[in-house]
Each structure stands twice: as structure tokens, then as C-alpha cells.
């Protein structure tokens, strides 16, 4: 067997627009897929743990970027750091952490050599057990940057774990948007499932996410959540996808039971939400089940 066929397959679930039900799906997929490792790559607003209730087995620190530290006692207030910094982040040796890009130019430019760059502990990542198997997740410190880098760490750890355990799939809950963390959650995956909703905003953001997967040449499938709140918009999504040759793997009805399941920490499968649970199972079958 060639090496690559033993590699675990990776599925990323994203949506472009937040709140379309991405995490609800990921949690249901966690339950339905037998041999897998879960990865919560929405590190900015990680929610998957609220449904999967992980028991943490291992915690490791995440160092996102280095931050300048100025020895103010020796600072002559020459103003060179202020001059060179392109992010308007340092004034007479005093740093505005939220503006700082962590580029270290001030350190290199300081004629007194009193600026050092220090590693900052900007979050943690975890390996956990859940009732559906192993999960890798993370917590980014408050107002920390570099979520893209943390996504990469979570994915790498999940993939290693999957290889170790001979798991067939890594299932990744991706972040919203199309920027750095999303790119990090998408590169090199086997396929992408895009969860959208039949609102003009949902359609707009789905189109942007589809351009991104096309840009990176990653096979994508679309699922329309709450399709019955606006049948016309659902038809627009269907015809758009048909035109672009994108497969629609399912349509899920709206049901308040989905929110109730979330409130009680259950997947939609566990809560057996009428209409929703069977539809999600069908989507799963088309995405993963008969791979």
C-alpha cells in the first residue's frame, strides 16, 4: 500500500458566515463517525466542547508570537522605535500591545539595545477524551492574536493522534470567514463541507467560501441548513451550486429542537430532533459514510 493511502482523511466543516449550524453538524458527525479524531479549529470562539464535554488528558502551552519588552530605565526616549514601527505601536519605549504586530523591528532598530522579544504564553491546546472518542481543542488567551497559528497546531496534533490510533478520519470544526484561520483549517484537507443557510447573507458568504476552496483546489460540498425558512433562497443556492458543479449533500429543516438539544448539551442525534436527525444522518452518509 502506498504511504498516502494510510494517511487519515480530513474533513473540514465551515460556513463563511457564522451561526449557520456548523458546530451542531460537527458534533453530530462526531457521534456518527466511528474511527476518527475530532479537532476544534474555531479557536477564536470554540464551542464544540460544550456539546462533547471533553475530559482533558493533556494540556500544552501555545506560544503565539514574541512581544517586545523595553528596559525603560535605560530608555533614552530617542524615539527611534516610534519612527521605525509601521503599526504605530510604540511611543518612547511604551508599547501598545493591541496595535503591536510583533515584528521585532523596534528591537533591531533600538540604538541602546534595550528591547528584547519575549515569548508570550498566548493560549493552551488540549488532547481530551469525549463520549465519542478523542478530541484536540484549544483555548486562545483573551485578546491574543495568531489564531491561524494555533489552528495549525491543533490540526497537526489531531493528525498525529489519528495516525497513532489508526483513525480513518480527522473531523475539523472550522472558523468563520475566509482569512488566515480559515486558510489554516483548509490547506491539505481531503474535503470540505460548507454549511449555509437560505439568507442573502448566508448565500453571499457561501459564495466567498466557495471561491476560496476553488482557489485552493479543495473539493467542497454544500449543505443547506434551515432550508425551509426561505424556499426561494434555497432554490437560489441550489441553482448556484448546480452551475458551479458543486454537490448539495442535503437540506435540513428548521426546528427549535436543535436549540433545545444544544441547551441540554446533546447532539441533534442524541436528542433525536424530529426531521433534523434523519436529515443530518443522510448528509453524513453522503459525506463520510460511503467513502
Amino acid at each position: 500500500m502506498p504511504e498516502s493511502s494510510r494517511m487519515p482523511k480530513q474533513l473540514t466543516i465551515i460556513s463563511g458566515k457564522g451561526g449557520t449550524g456548523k458546530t451542531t453538524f460537527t458534533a453530530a458527525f462526531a457521534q456518527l463517525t466511528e474511527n476518527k479524531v475530532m479537532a476544534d479549529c474555531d479557536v477564536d470562539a470554540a464551542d464544540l466542547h460544550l456539546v462533547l464535554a471533553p475530559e482533558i488528558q493533556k494540556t500544552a502551552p501555545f506560544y503565539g508570537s514574541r512581544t517586545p519588552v523595553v528596559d525603560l530605565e535605560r530608555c533614552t526616549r530617542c524615539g527611534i522605535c516610534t519612527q521605525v514601527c509601521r503599526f504605530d505601536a510604540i511611543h518612547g519605549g511604551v508599547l501598545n500591545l493591541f496595535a503591536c504586530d510583533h515584528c521585532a523591528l523596534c528591537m533591531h532598530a533600538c540604538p541602546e539595545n534595550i528591547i528584547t522579544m519575549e515569548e508570550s504564553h498566548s493560549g493552551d491546546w488540549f488532547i481530551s477524551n469525549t463520549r465519542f472518542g478523542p478530541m484536540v481543542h484549544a483555548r486562545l488567551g483573551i485578546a491574543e492574536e495568531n489564531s491561524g497559528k494555533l489552528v495549525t497546531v491543533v490540526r497537526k496534533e489531531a493528525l498525529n493522534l489519528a495516525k497513532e490510533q489508526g483513525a480513518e478520519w480527522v473531523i475539523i470544526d472550522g472558523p468563520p470567514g475566509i482569512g488566515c484561520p480559515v486558510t489554516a483549517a483548509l490547506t491539505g484537507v481531503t474535503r470540505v463541507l460548507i454549511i449555509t443557510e437560505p439568507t442573502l447573507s448566508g448565500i453571499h458568504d457561501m459564495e466567498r467560501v466557495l471561491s476560496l476552496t476553488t482557489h485552493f483546489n479543495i473539493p467542497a460540498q454544500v449543505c443547506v441548513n434551515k432550508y425551509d425558512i426561505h424556499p426561494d433562497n434555497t432554490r437560489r443556492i441550489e441553482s448556484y451550486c448546480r452551475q458551479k458543479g458543486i454537490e448539495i449533500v442535503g437540506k435540513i429543516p428548521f426546528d427549535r429542537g436543535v436549540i433545545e438539544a444544544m441547551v441540554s448539551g446533546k447532539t441533534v442525534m442524541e436528542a433525536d430532533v424530529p426531521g433534523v436527525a434523519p436529515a443530518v444522518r443522510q448528509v453524513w452518509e453522503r459525506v463520510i459514510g460511503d467513502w
Partner: protein
Amino acid sequence: MDTPITITIASGKGGTGKTLVATSLVLSLPEGVQYLDCDVEAPNAHIFLQPQWEEELKTGLVVPRVEAAVCTACGECNRVCEFKAIVVIVDKVLVFDELCHGCGACSYICPSDAITEIEKAIGIIRKGRARNGIRFLQGLLNIGEPMATPIIRRLKKEAATNARITLRDAPPGTSCPVIESVEGSDFTILVTEPTPFGLNDLKLAVGMGRELHVPMGVIINRADAGDDRVHRYCGKEGLPILLEIPLKREIAQGYADGQTLIDILPEYRDRFQGVFARIQEEVRHAGK
């Protein structure tokens, strides 16, 4: 009259109705408010406010280009770049534009002056007039570009300084692009929903707002759809609840069509005016 005010509308969790709130609020205010759509990865406010675009400009980063004839392959640029965006392999210098932050460290350090910088477009800024005379600015990240923050920074620079009221529609989450959007505003509205996800992400957003020392208030969307955990949390943390919006099919459908709350249920105009008055009061209070 009152001093100029900048309000950012944010939400830890995506899809809680942040843009619905922001666009409804702006339509409840007097004419001529400035609206910045800072959700440059997935901007949606234009769907609700229908701006006529008047101007479009490219925005970008400056990235290094190395003159091979002058370069001695000393490796200094490679050494100083914090982002591994410029790499020297044997006698060649490779620049990875997608990793570059445009910080200028490499050109600053290069002892042979072999590095010049070129402007690389990563997105666009659009300006126009929307419904109700709104001065509307939108940032849009190009597909495949990773860095949203420089576009938001530029969007803030392009904003008119003489506007009496500016609303910023922030991206979801709590990371760099959100911080850039919230930075420098007088007040932040956090839109959430009364579910475990909503509460979890609200807590993260509140943590971020506190770090940035910006006064905050909460709007609860789909207020009757979950439980009372968000209410309890707000009570405990002393966060004012500015407004509650129920889960209603007519709202969901109107929103799906690109309508604001003011279009769907006109009585919300008064409520949002109330929200604005309350915010003015909170800001005045925080200023003391």
C-alpha cells in the same frame, strides 16, 4: 450638541444577528451617520443598506523585492523576519508574500540595500451612500489572502473624521481583526443569544472588551429561544442589557430577504433610538 461617538457592534459567536442589529440601529438614527463594515472576510451590511458605490480603492501591504545583482545572500533578512516570509537558500532569496506582514524589518536590516518594497493589493475599500443618507464604507479581503487586519486598519483611516456618529460592524470572534475593529471606539454592543454557545462566546467577547477598556452593553437576539443563562451572567457582571429581540419567523424571513428590523417591524425604530440614548448615557458615565 453631543460629542462625536463611535460604536462598535460585535459578537463572540457568529450568526447571532450582529449585522441585523447594526443595520437596524443605523436606520433609526438621524441622517448622515457613518457606517463601517469591518467584517472584511464576510461583509453583509451592504445587502441591508444597499449603498450606491461612489469610489473604490485598492488596499494592500508593502512587500519586499530583492535585487539579485546587489544581494550578497548574507542571510540577515532571513534572520530578522519574525514571520519566516523571507528565506535565503544557498544564494537565493525567496519571499513568501502571503506570510509577509509588511513590517519592513528586512529592508531596514539589509546591509547591502538590496531590498525595495512594492505595494501588493490584498483587498479593496468601497465608499458610497446608502439608505437614509448613510455614509457607507466597506472593506473586502481578496480571496486567498490571509490577513484581514491591514484592511480594517485602512478602513478606519479612510473614515471621515467629522462624522457625529460612526458605527463599526465588526467580524465575529475575539482575535486580531476584532480587536482592530473595537480599538478606539467609545462603546461596544455585544450581540448574543441565550444558549450555551452564545454565553460561552459572550464571555470571551467581554474579556476582550475589558482588556481594551471599552464600555459594553448586550443585545440578546432570539431571546426566548434558549434559557436564562445569558441574563444571569449579565446581571452578575453588571452588563446592561440594551434590547431583547424574540425568535420570530417573520423576523427570520425578513432577514433572509435582506430586510432590517425597522423594515420588518417598524416599532423597532423607537426601541433602537432608546438603545442609542442609553449608550450615550453609558458613555458619558464612563467618561467621568
